[in-house]
């Protein structure tokens, strides 16, 4: 008996020691060795290859349902990581990988526990938090020395907005991404084949939208004899009803155009009648828009499971939904799968519905919402910049095949796009298709990095007639990767070129100090109230008590603070 217990104690002791050892083994490679740090003193070359392999651990967003990677490739071992190893001699490691919402949680956890990967992509709120916690490196010199000329040009062309977003006390604390303007403009995507079948026109007003949605619900547009179609898709569980001043872009399945059709801009800081800043969500226009959405929901024209559904894109892919609101790039979103599912699903985009004055008046976004940050004592702070240079260069050279894993697999990817990239590309495609220009005319436009390769594959996926965007005039199976991009641009970008519109910007796109402690609870109040009003769980009059509560719980003070920070 005694012997046995001794054995047990030994095993126990061993396992504790072993555990400690293996921990150490995991940690060591992350620590910089003296030789490695010495290497980073070589003259700055934005594309230089390291002689010794350099390690970098990152966080990455991975969609677990994505099946684009070829057999044998993984999120850690694919065309992108192989190219990086080849060109830069950098070994990428994932400290953590998670899908959308979960990634934000992992990042928050990493910040809170001060257990950070060497670099990651964060949003404005997280960036501010990390600066205050003194967790990230000053990248001023890295940017000066290592940013490639093309990327510098794009950042400088934002009139200082991109640099301003990452500059704290005169230091550049992150590398800002620069996204195209079009990412912040939400359009109405609609099943054109359903419209045609029911002899309807695209709805231009709210009244027509209601009529079309009713027809989509009641008149069996998918022809299966069952009443199982959704008129308008709404946000999924945890999704946003509208983009806001902190997340001003890429709000999928919200109701942004419906709000702007009522001249309402909830979530944005606007100039009030007295010239002072006022929060759009508490204005009477927002109440009106909520009333109209509430009405649509009560009539069963909006997805009855909005706000509860786990994935809003499922009914779209399955061909059960007729209308949703989102930016131009929806073939990168649900539409590729929707079309793979049904080659006749003819999704078209319109800058509709219009407001009472017959205008399309979308809210405008800030160019930089994604930022690459580098952990404070990481030995090679220039590696992330080099990765971004490398991505931009290879997109220009068309090295990567998006059908073998989308660009999201590129480590630390943030977008660098001239603000008019979408509109410019659409114009270029149209000119090439009509024959008025050729690929050579666009060969020098280096900033529009994908344009040459896009034009090269244009005619393999687009059939005549070139002025029709109908799904039957496309040949996606010839090259799904190219189709995804070109269809997004021509169908989703087309309305931006063809429509005259005035954008409504927010006065402010970042947090003020008081917001750090109060905003979360105010946002919760707002989200919950609005969702309940729309879905009929609370009467419309709740809006009035919401405005009261919002002001009392810190909203008024915050409005004053916003006024101050704008006056500076």
């Amino acid at each position, binding site marked *: *008996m*005694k012997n*046995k*217990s001794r054995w*047990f*104690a030994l095993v*126990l002791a061993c396992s504790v020691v072993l555990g400690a050892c293996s921990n150490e083994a995991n940690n060591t490679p992350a620590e910089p060795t003296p030789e490695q740090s010495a290497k980073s003193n070589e003259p700055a070359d934005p594309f230089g290859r390291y002689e010794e392999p350099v390690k970098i651990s990152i966080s990455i967003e991975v969609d677990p349902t994505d099946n684009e990677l070829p057999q044998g490739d993984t999120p850690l071992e694919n065309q992108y990581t192989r190219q990086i190893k080849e060109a830069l001699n950098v070994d990428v490691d994932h400290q953590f990988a998670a899908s959308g919402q979960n990634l*934000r*949680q992992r990042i*928050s*956890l990493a*910040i*809170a*526990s*001060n257990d950070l990967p060497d670099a990651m992509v964060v949003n404005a*709120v*997280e960036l501010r*938090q990390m600066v*205050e*916690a*003194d*967790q990230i490196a000053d990248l001023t010199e890295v940017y000066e020395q290592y940013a490639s000329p093309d990327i510098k040009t794009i950042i400088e062309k934002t009139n200082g907005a991109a640099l301003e977003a990452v500059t704290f006390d005169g230091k550049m604390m992150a590398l800002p991404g620069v996204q195209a303007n079009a990412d912040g403009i939400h359009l109405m995507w609609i099943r054109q084949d359903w419209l045609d079948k029911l002899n309807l026109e695209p709805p231009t007003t709210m009244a027509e939208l209601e009529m079309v949605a009713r027809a989509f619900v009641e008149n069996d547009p998918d022809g299966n004899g069952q009443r*199982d179609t959704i008129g308008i898709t709404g946000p999924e*569980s*945890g999704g946003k009803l509208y983009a806001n001043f902190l997340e001003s872009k890429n709000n999928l399945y919200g109701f942004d155009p419906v709000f702007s059709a009522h001249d309402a801009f909830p979530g944005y800081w606007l100039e009030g009648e007295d010239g002072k800043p006022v929060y759009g969500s508490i204005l009477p226009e927002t109440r009106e828009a909520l009333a109209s959405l509430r009405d649509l929901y009560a009539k069963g024209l909006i997805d*009855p*499971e909005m*706000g*509860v559904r*786990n994935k809003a894109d499922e009914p779209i892919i399955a061909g059960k939904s007729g209308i949703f609101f989102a930016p131009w790039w929806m073939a990168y979103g649900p539409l590729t799968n929707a079309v793979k599912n049904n080659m006749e699903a003819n999704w078209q985009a319109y800058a509709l519905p219009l407001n009472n004055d017959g205008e399309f008046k979308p809210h405008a976004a800030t160019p930089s919402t994604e930022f690459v940050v580098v952990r404070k004592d990481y030995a090679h702070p220039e590696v992330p910049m080099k990765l971004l240079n490398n991505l931009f260069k290879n997109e220009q050279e068309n090295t990567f095949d998006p059908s073998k894993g989308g660009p999201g697999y590129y480590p630390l990817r943030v977008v660098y796009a001239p603000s008019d990239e979408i509109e410019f590309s659409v114009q270029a495609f149209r000119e090439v298709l009509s024959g008025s220009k050729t690929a050579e005319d666009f060969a020098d436009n280096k900033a529009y990095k994908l344009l040459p390769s896009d034009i090269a594959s244009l005619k393999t996926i687009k059939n005549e007639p070139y002025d029709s965007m109908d799904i039957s005039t496309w040949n996606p199976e010839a090259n799904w990767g190219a189709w995804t991009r070109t269809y997004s641009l021509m169908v989703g970008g087309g309305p931006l070129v063809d429509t005259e519109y005035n954008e409504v910007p927010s006065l402010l796109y970042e947090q003020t100090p008081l917001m750090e*402690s109060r905003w*979360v*609870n105010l946002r*919760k109040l707002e*989200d*919950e109230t609005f*969702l*309940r009003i729309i*879905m009929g*769980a609370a009467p419309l009059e709740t809006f009035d008590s919401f405005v009261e509560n919002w002001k009392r719980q810190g909203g008024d003070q915050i409005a004053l603070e916003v006024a101050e920070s704008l006056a500076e």
Partner: protein
Amino acid sequence: MRMKGFAKHYYLMLIPGLLLLFIFSIIPMFGIIISFQYFNPGKGILGSDWAGLEHFRYMFLLKDTQEVFVNTLVIASMKIVANLIAPLMFALMLNELRLMILRRWIQTIVYLPHFLSWVILGGIVLDLFSYNGPVNQLTALFGSQPKVFFADSELFPLLVVGSDVWKEFGFGTIIYLAALTGINPALYEAANIDGAGRWRSLWHITLPGIRTTAVLLAVLSLGNVLNAGFDQIFNLYNPLVYSTGDIIDTWVYRTGLLNLQYELATAVGLLKSVVGFLLISVSYYLAYRFVNYRIF
């Protein structure tokens, strides 16, 4: 001498458990300091500046705090009651079943859900009650309109308690069945001879026989009155049912980890611990008074 060695052996087996307790429960307790600080993750717990009671003041100002405390109490109490009664009833019914094979099968099947995590069960429950799900299809046969169950804040606590009972009652049944086998069969024989029917022997033999177990379980579960089940609610809720479904743990999670308000979240967590500590003390006192159960 022999006996002494025997005891040592048992203490040794305690070590891994104590070690885990120390690492995961005792050490993190020092984190409550955060609620008195302006916590800065870069400087860590030892380096951050002090804030006094500011976060506690803001906590009591917030309507949310009250709401989540009430929700937690309501959901947890309902769960405690339901999880006492359902397994008891089921164990009694199963006990009356004379076909041993069937009894074992049923027992095994009903406690299967206990071993699945809420990530999986949550998905199943959400699907069952979805707009086009089986429950709505069933009620449609009786002519009612389909309903989005998980958007209804009044129904949400019931769905939570119901699904929790579904998951756990099989496991609870085992404890009661064990207590039932502890009853001397001679008592039943004697009652039988005296002409008692099934109901009478249930009332006079079975129920008194397991009374101690039932009271003990009831009293001990009081310690959980502030644990309404994070994983379950987290997998089932959505912003529409925050008003009745948001509990302390989910709120602390969202506030602290998603919204980076570490101090406020810790303050609320600390309040929960204080209240929980009082309730547990009371429940152990009660356990001592009524069934003579002691830990110390």
